[in-house]
């Protein structure tokens, strides 16, 4: 029996030890906002927060999250509401197909705690583990810079 907290809610799951964190979130818990892209820890679409740190949930065993706090895109804002980061993504047209977006948002969220400055070069470097095949990153970088700048102000 695996016990952890997801978006603040205690969860108990029956899972095989070989289950990945992304599998635990998507299947038994139905939190399909965490996307499984490459399954090789490269694309970053499956990025979630593990005790506040951004990790690739396709490269972490669910068991490794035992007792931990996991944050997913579903916990970003209450239903019907938008997180300031989501609004910034909307303003800057920071998505097209949207597949990478949950991972981008979770990655950006962790940047604040890491002290990433609201500057394009720093944000691009911090975003190196998240691939977007639509936007060319311009809008994503602008949105994150705007949000980091506002939060720092």
């Amino acid at each position: 029996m695996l016990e952890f907290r997801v978006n603040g809610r205690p969860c108990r799951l029956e899972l095989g030890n070989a289950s990945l964190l992304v599998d635990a979130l998507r299947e038994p818990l139905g939190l399909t906002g965490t996307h499984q892209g490459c399954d090789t820890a490269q694309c970053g679409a499956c990025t979630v927060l593990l005790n506040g740190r951004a990790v690739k949930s396709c490269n972490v065993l669910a068991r490794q999250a035992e007792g931990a706090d996991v944050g997913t895109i579903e916990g970003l804002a209450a239903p019907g509401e938008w997180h300031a980061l989501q609004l910034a993504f909307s303003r800057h047209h920071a998505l097209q197909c949207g597949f990478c977006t949950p991972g981008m948002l979770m990655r950006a969220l962790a940047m604040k705690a890491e002290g990433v400055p609201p500057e394009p070069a720093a944000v691009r470097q911090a975003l190196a583990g998240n691939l977007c095949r639509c936007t060319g990153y311009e809008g994503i970088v602008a949105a994150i810079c705007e949000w980091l700048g506002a939060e720092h102000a």
Partner: protein
Amino acid sequence: MREFEYCRARSVDEVLRWLRDGTDSKLLAGGQSLLGAMKLGLMAPERLIDLQGLAELRGCAATAGGELQLGAMQSHASLARHALLRGLVPGLARLASHIADEQVRSQGTLGGSLANADPAACWPAGMLALGATLVTDRRELPADEFFTGFFSTALEPDELLCSVRLRRPRRFAYAKFEQAASRFALVGVALAQFDDGAVRVALTGGAHGVQRLPAFEQALGQRFAAEALQGLKVDAALMSSDVHGEADYRAHLAGVLAARVVQDALTLEST
């Protein structure tokens, strides 16, 4: 991935007991290399021993002897940001900050990287250049004896890497030419100069695992300047050929990077 038994260790003794009870066990540090290998079926242990709960494998502190002790379970990201490491060996913190990407760095660990001894990894080159001491549950190994080749170390099957100790260099720098997708080093060169003038140069991305470049060390020991390396070449026989680059190209890159790290070491001095 094939099913396995999962155990989270509460003490070093418990780790050693599990390693010795006859079950095919693998140690799980951050898992950033191991889980990928298991997904590909390259490894299928019967048991994973998760080390994340062992506080004694964490920390980054100066020892009474003036050395720096880094816990094996420190993540790359935590060391990249660690004020003490950034102050004493800024080039090593910089090395940590350029491993893979932030998500991998936040989960992957120093000890995992060293024990895995991937021939294209960054930490082994840094620790070999620094002449670090690798501390296990039972002994202390100099980096020169620890790394024994391609994905190969001197660790016994039932031995646990606990920490790494290093003396403060006068200068240290590391540069790599990244493989663009993985950010592993296609070739990387680490260089340390010590207060007695001795220089150690380590090459990663080679065919046989991390190794030193004695001719480069000697030249730089006599004169610490990029010009001292003129005429020196890295032997292509040290390198491998694959889809990312031929051996002679990699050997050429190694020479270029060696000159570059000398320059970096002169500008990025230990303070």
